[in-house]
């Protein structure tokens, strides 16, 4: 809970006077606050720099070092001050957190030093205010990445393999990190060399060589030295195939490996060769075969395993895909518009190149990008006019937005990242708030379960209760007053949904008697509900669903001695509390849940998770004086 709220707690408690006329039951006694009321000033000496603050200021956050009794460990009797041997500059920020409720991150400080100080003083970094949160997160992530990189680099090169790794693991490691062993390095360079050789061979075999003797036509070298090129190609493909098969064998997850981009590139690079081998020397098919050889150029992509830069480029393009797609889309729109216009403008001309709209696309693209090959030119006046408009707008469409779009890319990219970050932070923030809320609600339920609602002397309070701060005591007292005012108790979601579920189970309609106690509690509100709850509490879930319910209307007054006996088996701790506390002020009848003969509450009840929740409430209610619960079946 935001601790600045602690200052308002006395006000909220005072305002509870407004509930008094409405309350059906008496208000519980407030917790005894033994601490002195007057505010005192504390001295905190941090490495020689003296800070002074009110004790109340530090008490605002009782779960930190300075707010709890942990600071007593640092108390110096001689100088009557708390001495901390820490960084005084950082302490300033920490003390400001107590004062203002917001933790700020000093931008000039090292993030790790700051984190360490926070950890020492018991402050969670999540409460850094919005103003500084983004900076803090960024710096922290940067730091972590840098550390991760360092450790990764270390690990990759220096860490020896575990001694009992299989040859498969070693092979995979050799492929992924060629620097680990000499063999891997050799293999790495050999494959790199052969990729280069293969690419150069592809290029060179198309260069025209001097024709052989007796022929005038120029031949491409590929055909002149076809055997040599074929041998080179075979060698390269053999190496690539071998490499691919080795990788496939060594991969820890073969399916994942086969789906990865690099393996697809590998396959595409070597496929044409094998298909060429398999295919017969047919004239028709060889045309298609020639096309396949184009795919050999993909071998150049195999270099991306050897080059970090290529990989980063590919990744960047992939991440900017949506912006590029948008650019393409808008260009397509412009092209279609102008191509249509040009086609219809040039339609009448005889012998025109603009034979169709798709044919006009080529003209539009060439004109808009200001290439102007001149293979297609308009002849009509209208065509020339629209052609000039096309080229002018081409300058605007392509040349102008390109820098804008480029800067937009980087801006949108960073903005998206920030928006995602903020959304994630918001989600985290909301989750934290919800958790804190749940924490406070659960705290109160836990408090009830621990028997905190009893009035006990100081010595006999359970240890868990003693550790709670006075703020918590008072806050729980306030919530307890609200319960008394409305005559309903707080439960958690689980037990509530359990109760709703049992109500939907078929129940036997039976005569319902309403009983009223001396307090005048109206029972007409939910006799049926009370009945079903009684069923639930007394039986196990199984018997409820079977509907084995007896009709009982009994009114039993439980004295303090009788109470624990029926519930003693359930919780020894509360029993001990009960025995210790003496003032029991029974002014109203307390009804215990009547038990059908099938089960008794003394038996160990089924330990389904829902029941203890409900039992907890009923238990606490039997222990609090002046609670009336009517059960009638």
């Amino acid at each position, binding site marked *: 809970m935001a601790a600045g709220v602690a200052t308002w707690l006395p006000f909220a*408690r005072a305002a509870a006077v407004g509930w008094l006329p409405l309350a059906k039951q*008496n208000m519980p006694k407030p917790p005894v606050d033994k601490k002195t009321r007057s505010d005192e000033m504390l001295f905190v000496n941090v490495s020689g720099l003296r800070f002074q603050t009110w004790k109340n200021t530090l008490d605002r956050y009782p779960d930190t070092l300075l707010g709890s009794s942990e600071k007593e460990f640092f108390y110096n009797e001689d100088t009557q001050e708390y001495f901390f041997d820490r960084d005084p500059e950082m302490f300033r920020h920490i003390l400001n957190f107590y004062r203002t409720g917001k933790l700020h991150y000093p931008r000039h400080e090292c993030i790790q030093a700051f984190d360490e100080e926070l950890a020492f003083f018991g402050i969670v970094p999540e409460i850094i205010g919005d103003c500084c949160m983004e900076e803090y997160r960024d710096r922290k992530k940067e730091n972590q990445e840098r550390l991760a990189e360092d450790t990764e680099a270390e690990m990759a090169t220096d860490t020896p393999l575990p001694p009992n790794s299989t040859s498969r693991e070693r092979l995979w490691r050799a492929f992924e990190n060629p620097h680990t062993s000499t063999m891997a390095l050799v293999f790495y360079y050999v494959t790199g060399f052969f990729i280069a050789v293969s690419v150069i061979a592809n290029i060179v075999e198309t260069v025209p060589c001097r024709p052989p003797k007796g022929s005038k036509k120029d031949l491409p070298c590929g055909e002149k030295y076809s055997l040599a090129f074929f041998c080179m190609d075979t060698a390269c493909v053999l190496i690539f195939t071998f490499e691919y098969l080795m990788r496939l064998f060594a991969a820890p997850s073969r399916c994942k490996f086969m789906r990865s981009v690099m393996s697809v590139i590998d396959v595409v690079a070597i496929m044409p060769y094998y298909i060429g081998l398999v295919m017969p020397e047919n004239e028709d098919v060889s045309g298609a075969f020639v096309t396949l050889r184009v795919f050999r150029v993909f071998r150049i992509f195999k270099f991306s395993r050897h080059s970090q830069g290529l990989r980063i480029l590919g990744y960047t393009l992939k991440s900017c895909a949506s912006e590029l797609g948008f650019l393409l889309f*808008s260009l397509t729109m412009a092209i279609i518009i102008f191509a249509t216009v040009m086609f219809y403008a040039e339609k009448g001309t005889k012998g025109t190149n603009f034979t169709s709209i798709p044919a006009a696309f080529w003209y539009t693209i060439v004109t808009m990008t200001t290439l102007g090959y001149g293979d297609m030119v308009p002849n009509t006046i209208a065509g020339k006019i629209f052609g000039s408009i096309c080229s002018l707008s081409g300058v605007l469409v392509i040349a102008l937005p390109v820098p804008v779009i480029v800067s937009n890319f980087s801006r949108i990219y960073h903005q998206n990242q920030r928006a995602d970050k903020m959304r994630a932070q918001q989600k985290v923030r909301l989750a934290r708030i919800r958790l804190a809320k749940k924490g406070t609600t659960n705290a109160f339920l836990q408090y009830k379960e621990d028997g905190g609602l009893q009035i006990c002397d100081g010595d006999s309070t359970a240890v868990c209760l003693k550790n709670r701060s006075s703020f918590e005591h008072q806050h729980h007292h306030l919530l307890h007053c609200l319960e008394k005012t409305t005559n309903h*108790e707080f*439960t958690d979601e689980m037990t509530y949904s359990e109760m709703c579920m049992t109500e939907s189970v078929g129940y036997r309609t039976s005569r319902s008697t309403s009983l009223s106690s001396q307090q005048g509690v109206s029972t*007409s509100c939910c006799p049926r509900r009370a009945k079903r709850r009684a069923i639930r509490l007394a039986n196990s879930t199984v018997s409820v669903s079977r509907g084995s319910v007896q009709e009982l209307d009994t009114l039993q007054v439980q004295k303090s001695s009788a109470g624990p006996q029926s519930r003693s088996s359930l919780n020894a701790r509360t029993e001990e509390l009960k025995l210790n506390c003496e003032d029991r002020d029974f002014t109203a009848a307390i009804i215990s849940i009547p038990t059908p003969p099938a089960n008794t509450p003394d038996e160990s009840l089924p330990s389904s998770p829902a029941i203890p929740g409900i039992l907890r409430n009923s238990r606490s209610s039997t222990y609090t004086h002046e609670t009336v619960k009517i059960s009638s079946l």
Partner: protein
Amino acid sequence: MGAVVGTLTMQTKQSRPSKDKVDDELEMTMVCHRPEGLDQLEAQTNFSKQELQVLYRGFKNECPSGVVNEETFKHIYAQFFPHGDASTYAHYLFNAFDTTNNGSIKFEEFVMGLSTLLRGTVREKLEWTFHLYDINRDGYINKEEMTEIVRAIYDMMGKYTYPALKGDVPKQHVDAFFQKMDKNKDGIVTLEEFITACQEDENMMRSMQLFENVM
């Protein structure tokens, strides 16, 4: 090209609403209020100087501008009752403290209210409670006003209660209340009826003493 122009214009439109909000917030922080002197407040309330000092330090820390507006008040009150929705009740409570009805609580109003609640006589406390219930300040509590208050209180309990809130529990509560308070059964409760009925209820009188050591 049209698409490019379209996207560029779309970007500029979004920036405008945020500017207005920033201006509004800037205006609000300019309002600053200083309370009367410590001696005057000590004379007007039942608090000692030290207590007033502690109260003011806490108040000023939370609201540096010196006034609490309703939103802040609701937010603070909601922190104490995380189970349910405390905003309606906080609204009525705010109106009860805001004696000048100007939409904000100054430190003097805050301290006067606290003084009545914590250090006032029984009659003063009951009068304060009566004013809390009397939403429209006409001097009478009728069933509608009471139902609203009770509903607001039950809202603070939230959904997950034991026993579950089914049926019109607030209404029954109000009926029970009116049965106790409304002596002449005319459907409204006057201040005197209220005070008389409360003073007859011993348990309530006893409970009232409990809240005195809150400060």
